């Protein structure tokens, strides 16, 4: 049973920059964990520390109960799929996939059978004798995965493997990766900056910001119950609507708007009200109104962008919001729409700390 455990993991670079500021997590065997966050948040660094490609300044990482801080990458029994595949250009596909096994002293016959089995699984059996330069991006991607699979490691590591593929291929490969992982039942850690990939692939998801884990949990949990403003804004597409507000004891005030139905919120403190685009409903009796600036037709749904009238604005003149409606709803530009909000799904955060208060 190969779980991965991180305790108090820190990474500080010689120039003083702190990339990872104390991360704790426990990954169960067979889980598909995704590290997600903006560029430079430390997610890749964390992955590379598990791989052994970066040193660990503080804390411990253990795989299957064994502390691997000082173990060399080749001995950790982990396999990695790199963002730009990192295939050996001078070897054939077969050579690329056999290399790791050869170095571990595995016999030729066994290597061949493993390679062929993996190649069949990934549908690259026809390319075994070709060189990487002769393959397309998607094919190279699968060879990179094949190289990892064939090792039968305790942990799979993926470092943004799909970012170099075109959109359609990305969706296809995403599904393949998930299926493969399920089938092989191997603990996996996947790094991406794309929240869609994160949401669809993960059993559990860790949102990382500035070297720290903001929140970790199942995708839906993070979507419905984000613990901070950062997580709420990062997860969910289109992005959650944010409106600056204050609580006066009875109502939530924002500019000219006064919303009732809130209680027990901190007063005299800047707050942010979060409402997801699908939680704002168009209603002729709605208490809120928006001016329509742009209508995007996405097929089954439309997204309507505009200004929330009367709301206090953060910087600038107006608070921009977005609502999701059925494809039939097509208001004219500059027209006014009346909206209702499902308060049970509204989120309120403190502006200073980002912590959720409702």
């Amino acid at each position: 049973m190969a779980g991965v455990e991180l305790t108090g993991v820190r990474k500080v670079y010689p120039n003083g920059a702190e990339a990872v500021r104390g991360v704790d997590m426990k990954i169960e065997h067979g889980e598909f964990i995704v590290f997600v966050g903006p560029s430079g948040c430390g997610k890749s660094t964390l992955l590379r520390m598990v791989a052994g490609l970066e040193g660990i300044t503080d804390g411990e990482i253990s795989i299957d109960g064994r502390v691997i801080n000082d173990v060399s990458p080749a001995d950790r029994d982990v396999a990695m799929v790199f963002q730009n595949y990192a295939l050996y250009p001078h070897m054939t596909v077969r050579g690329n996939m056999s290399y790791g096994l050869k170095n571990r002293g595995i016999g030729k016959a066994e290597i061949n059978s493993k390679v062929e089995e993996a190649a069949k699984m990934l549908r690259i059996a026809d390319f075994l004798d070709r060189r990487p330069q002769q393959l397309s991006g998607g094919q190279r991607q699968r060879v990179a995965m094949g190289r990892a699979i064939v090792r039968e490691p305790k942990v799979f590591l993926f470092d943004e493997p799909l970012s170099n593929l075109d959109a359609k291929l990305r969706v296809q490969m995403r599904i393949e990766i998930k299926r493969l992982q399920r089938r092989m039942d191997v603990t996996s850690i996947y790094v991406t900056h794309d929240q869609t990939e994160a949401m669809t692939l993960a059993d559990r998801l860790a949102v990382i910001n500035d070297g720290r884990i903001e929140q970790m949990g199942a995708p839906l949990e993070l979507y419905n119950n984000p613990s901070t403003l950062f997580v709420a804004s990062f997860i969910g597409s289109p992005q959650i609507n944010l409106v600056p507000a204050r609580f006066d004891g009875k109502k939530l005030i924002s500019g000219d708007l006064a919303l009732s139905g809130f209680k027990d919120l901190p007063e005299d403190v800047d707050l942010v009200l979060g409402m997801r685009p699908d939680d704002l409903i168009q209603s002729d009796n709605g208490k809120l109104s928006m001016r329509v600036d742009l209508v995007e037709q996405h097929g089954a749904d439309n997204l309507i962008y505009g200004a929330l009238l009367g709301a206090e604005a953060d910087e600038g003149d107006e608070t921009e919001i977005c609502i999701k409606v059925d494809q039939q709803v097509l208001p004219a530009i500059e027209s006014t729409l009346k909206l209702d909000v499902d308060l049970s799904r509204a989120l309120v955060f403190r502006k200073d700390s980002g912590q959720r208060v409702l």
Partner: protein
Amino acid sequence: MKRVQFEHSPIPYLFIAPQIIIIVVFFLWPAAQAIYQSFLLEDAFGLSSQFVWFKNYSDTVFSTSWLQAAGFTVVFSTLVTLLSLAIALLLAVKANEVIHGARTYKTTLMWAYAIAPPVAGLMGNLMFHPLIGDLYKLMNAIGWDFNHKLDAFDASFVVILISVWKQVSVNFIFFLSGLQGIPHSVVEAATMDCKNATRRFWTITFPLLAPTTFFLMVINITYAFFETFGIIDTTTRGAPGGATNTLVYKVFQDGFRGADLGGSSAQSVVLMLIVLALTVVQFRFIERKVHY
């Protein structure tokens, strides 16, 4: 070729003229002369000449002194190439690994490129000098009865050592550049696939350096053939008895000192053919390249 070009302009002719003129006057015309003279036999005073077809060639190419020079040139080129490539590769690999002081190492290992071969030759000569040379004393101290003025092996040793020394810098620069051209992620993937660093080097790094290595081999062989003239001229001058003559040095000796124009020209033409062969190899194999 460029997709877009200027047409109907006198400018290209004007611009290319200087180079072409110089080439014709100073390259092609002398080369033609050399070829022409290789078929002649001149008398001692240069007053009359006789057309002798390929006699100069057969006289020269089959003479013992030419064969000796050819033999030495082959051995010399091989040793200089292999040794300077090996030393430079080792230094480049190590220099690529360190972080602290990388720049200092790089600078101090590459600056020897700027030394002229004859200067290196003279320095080496003085260091092996019987009267003052420490290297000379060192050789005798370890029991080697060293005399590079009389002993062919010792003379070759000196010339090879100095030639290798001078060439390490150039090879070092190219190897280092080649190493840095290997994608970092490929190196990382290898770290995860193979624990043994030496094995990683021979199975991953060295094959990926193949284009650089082949290219450098041609450069080094050319260097050993031609540029070592300056080294030989300030150390052994071909002594003892022609043992350290390279083919190029012999051309010079026979032509300028021996005044044998016909023979020297024949040798020049043979050299031209060798250069042609080397160039063909360079452009056919290197350009076709082990392409990654």
